[in-house]
């Protein structure tokens, strides 16, 4: 029997404790802006982030909770990024929700529960723990989407998210139960070993994988499981959209690696084929549909679909003709892609919220018109984000695409080469709508309604500037971040 080894779950334990504490403390907060709650939340999250970073730097792999949880560099690195993402999300969100009378203690504690779910997923070593983490995260998110109780669109988005999310959880659970039935184990290492023996009923395994991939695809928001993405992105309060579009992507990547790579690498031939279809259709539909959007949040939702499709391409190149030599290269490229995507998304939605302060929304693309004149700094930062998403150097998004393309091409298989060409041609389509944002900001005249509106300054604008600088600095010097991702993935594969 494996020992409990509590040390492994200290960050999660702290997070759980503080989430409850925040909920309680908030009852006694009378301040309208909820400053004590805000600072308590941020302080706890910083502590959690520091713990994850320390665990990551120790570089050790340990199992805890009787083998249910694993503490390895990949999990901690992803959890660290997720925690930082949530810290920034809350900082961006606070003024926005404060001006919309949504600033209640629940926002903070629910957000911490979202992060708890993410951290659990990142370090899960057991099918049930994966599912547990997923549900902690999802249920908190459903509630957060519906935070604006009296707002029709938000409520509709929450319902849609809940119903489809429950369906996807069902898919995942069904697939996992099939795997359990076939391999007689819930533990990811043991499942891997069992599949490796080659004595398992192939039909059951294949069915299981199909359901698991469908469930994961829903969480990643890739075609054809993407229907919820545009509606939820548009309908949710922007603060929550940012929360959904940021850290959960890291978690979805984490469980994809945990389940498919660490658990079912032996079935890679099956799930890679599905991934190719998911990835290419996401690139096509995401990029084409984004062109037609007039709502900025909806456009970014379709852009997310295509970006996740691009990331999945990296997941398809891990096992080539039964050979796992390129696995480290491929999966670390995908991880780098997700991390850089999250950095960029944070800034983009943060900026939308910043513009939307004072009770106005700034959700239509036309609301950005003339921003280059009204607020040159903000327009400049947004330009960095847009070029990064379009994958134009020297922004960090370029290196993410480079890493994925490199993973495809170095397989030296003609099919993957064709896939790479398809991917770059579709990203050309993508460039069009990102460029359109730049065009609206710089080449169009401000709308009369927006012309006089001042853009407020404050701490958030400084954070936005840092976020924009990060996109550029990681673009000029991407080496460090790439090395971290590679290191984490290689260690995860080694165990």
């Amino acid at each position, binding site marked *: 029997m494996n020992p409990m080894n509590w040390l492994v779950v200290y960050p999660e334990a702290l997070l759980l404790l503080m989430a409850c504490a925040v909920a309680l403390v908030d009852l006694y907060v009378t301040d309208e802006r909820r400053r004590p709650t805000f600072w308590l939340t941020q302080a706890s999250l910083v502590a959690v982030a520091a713990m994850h970073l320390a665990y990551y730097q120790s570089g050790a792999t340990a199992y805890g909770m009787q083998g249910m949880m694993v503490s390895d560099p990949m999990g901690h690195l992803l959890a660290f990024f997720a925690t930082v993402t949530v810290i920034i999300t809350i900082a961006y969100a606070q003024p926005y929700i404060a001006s919309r009378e949504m600033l209640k203690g629940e926002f903070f504690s629910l957000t911490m529960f979202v992060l708890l779910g993410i951290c659990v997923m990142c370090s899960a070593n057991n099918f049930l723990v994966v599912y547990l983490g997923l549900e902690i995260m999802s249920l908190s998110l459903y509630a957060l989407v519906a935070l604006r109780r009296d707002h029709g669109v938000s409520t509709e988005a929450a319902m849609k998210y809940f119903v489809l999310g429950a369906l996807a959880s069902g898919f995942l659970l069904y697939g996992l139960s099939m795997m359990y039935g076939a391999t007689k184990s819930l533990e990811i290492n043991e499942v891997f070993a069992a599949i490796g023996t080659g004595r398992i009923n192939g039909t059951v395994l294949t069915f299981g994988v199909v359901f698991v991939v469908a469930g994961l695809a829903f969480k990643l928001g890739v075609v054809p499981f993407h229907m919820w993405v545009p509606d939820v992105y548009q309908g949710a309060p922007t603060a929550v959209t940012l929360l959904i579009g940021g850290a959960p992507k890291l978690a979805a990547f984490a469980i994809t690696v945990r389940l498919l790579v660490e658990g079912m690498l032996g079935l890679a031939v099956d799930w890679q084929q599905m991934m190719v279809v998911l990835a290419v259709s996401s690139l096509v539909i995401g990029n084409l549909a984004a062109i037609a959007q007039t709502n900025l949040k909806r456009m970014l939702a379709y852009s997310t679909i295509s970006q996740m499709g691009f990331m999945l391409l990296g997941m398809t190149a891990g096992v080539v003709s039964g050979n796992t030599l390129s696995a480290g290269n491929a999966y670390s490229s995908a991880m780098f892609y997700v991390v850089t995507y999250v950095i960029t998304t944070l800034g983009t939605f943060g900026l939308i919220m910043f513009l939307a302060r004072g009770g106005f929304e700034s959700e239509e693309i036309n609301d950005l018109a003339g921003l280059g004149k009204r607020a040159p700094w903000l327009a400049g930062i947004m330009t960095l984000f847009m070029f990064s998403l379009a994958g134009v150097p020297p922004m960090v998004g370029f290196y993410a695409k480079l890493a994925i393309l490199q993973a495809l091409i*170095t397989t030296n298989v003609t099919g993957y*080469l064709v896939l790479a060409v398809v991917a770059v041609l579709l990203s050309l389509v993508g460039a069009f709508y990102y460029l359109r944002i730049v065009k609206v900001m710089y080449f169009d005249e401000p709308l009369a309604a927006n012309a006089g509106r001042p853009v407020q300054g404050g701490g958030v604008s400084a954070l936005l500037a840092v976020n924009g600088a990060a996109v550029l600095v990681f673009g000029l010097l991407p080496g460090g971040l790439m*090395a971290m991702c590679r290191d984490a993935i290689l260690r995860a594969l080694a165990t």
Partner: protein
Amino acid sequence: MGLLSVSIWLPIAFGAVLLATGREDKADSARWLALVGAVLSFIVTIPLITGFDTGTAALQFSENLLWIERFNVRYHLGVDGISVWFVLLTAFITVVVVVAGWEVITERVAQYMGAFLILSGLMVGVFSAADGLLFYVFFEATLIPMYIIIGIWGGPRRVYAAFKFFLYTLAGSLLMLVALIFLYYKSGGSFDIASWHKLPLPMPAQALLFFAFFAAFSVKVPMWPVHTWLPDAHVEAPTGGSVVLAAIMLKLGAYGFLRFSMPIAPDASREYAWFIIALSLIAVVYIGLVALVQQDMKKLVAYSSIAHMGFVTLGFFVFNELGVSGGLVQMISHGFVSGAMFLAIGVLYDRVHSREIATYGGVVNTMPKFAAFALFFTMANCGLPGTGGFVGEWMVILGTVQASFWLAAIAATALIFGAAYSLWMYKRVYFGDVTNDEVRGLTDLNAREFGLMAVLAIATLWMGVYPKPFTDVMHVSVTELLKHVAMSKLVGG
């Protein structure tokens, strides 16, 4: 920090400062800051040519640092005889552009100047990159400032032109990116261009690489039939944007052929040379005819640029020293001449706000000094002996004769078309009677404009009368390149 790094980052630093501090009410300080930046950036490039060793084809002034460890990408810079003049040309043209925009640009001055300075640094980076990925990063990054320049300070259809420019170029270069990664894989994990030159490759791979590079560079040059973005971009761009486009950005494409296509895929280059030559001749002849019927002066010069660049690619793909050196000389002289042609159009446009040929007539009566300069540059544009335009075209034609007489004969017709459209435009704009009040009210060049024109005229004349400094610098690098291209890289061959 080496000289090349300074040449790249100094203008970018000035540009960044301008963007960060620029304010609408302090336009004058922005202008002066930009001028100081541009002049300093030009001065630091001068030692590159004075200290250049013409006896070797190796990269000089090189700097080599590890940049991205994961993919073994190196911050590797260096110039040889092929690229060094373009570094100077870029820095020089930037000074011209800053001065040219002095009074003309009144809105968002700091951003305008900043964009051009950053663009200048990036283009120097393209010419001096010795690492494939570094080259690509600079090559692509130039799109961003140019897109903004056309879109903000351009004419009525500027948005259309800016998108067309960006997407056309991006389409080509994305295929090149795939090619670069393919080479990275084939060379066992290196982005070093020099090691790619030595890499043996089978014919199908060479052909694929050749066409991937062709996609990127033919759009940039631009070659017929992917040239259609250029007239739009030129017409809509502000004068400074047109000058940089014609004088330098087009050269990035032609430079790419020499740096990538020919040495990396020499067998495919020889195999498909007929294809490039055919497209070049179409550009020379057909585009020359198209230029003849243009009503818009900027469009006319844009088409003439395409025809001239056709000469350049023709010269490259006849594979002899006269042809390649001629192409390079043509690139440099075209940088001066086309830059001056666009400036001249800008001078008229600033006064009359029209680019239609029909609006003018008899300008020589009211602007005699300007008309003299314009005549000089028009003559240079059609290749009058004694100007830079003549040397390059003559060398290319001589080089082509060595390959095939008939090809040369077709190419030589371009001189006739060139003379026809250039001189006919000159006649309609400058000669004749003054037909309307706008022309009657024109004032001649002011000191700033006169200075600009004079400097460019001296450069053009210098290239025409004494091109030796240019060809001397190129000689060793070009012979080395041709020796390399003549050898087969087929595996086992």
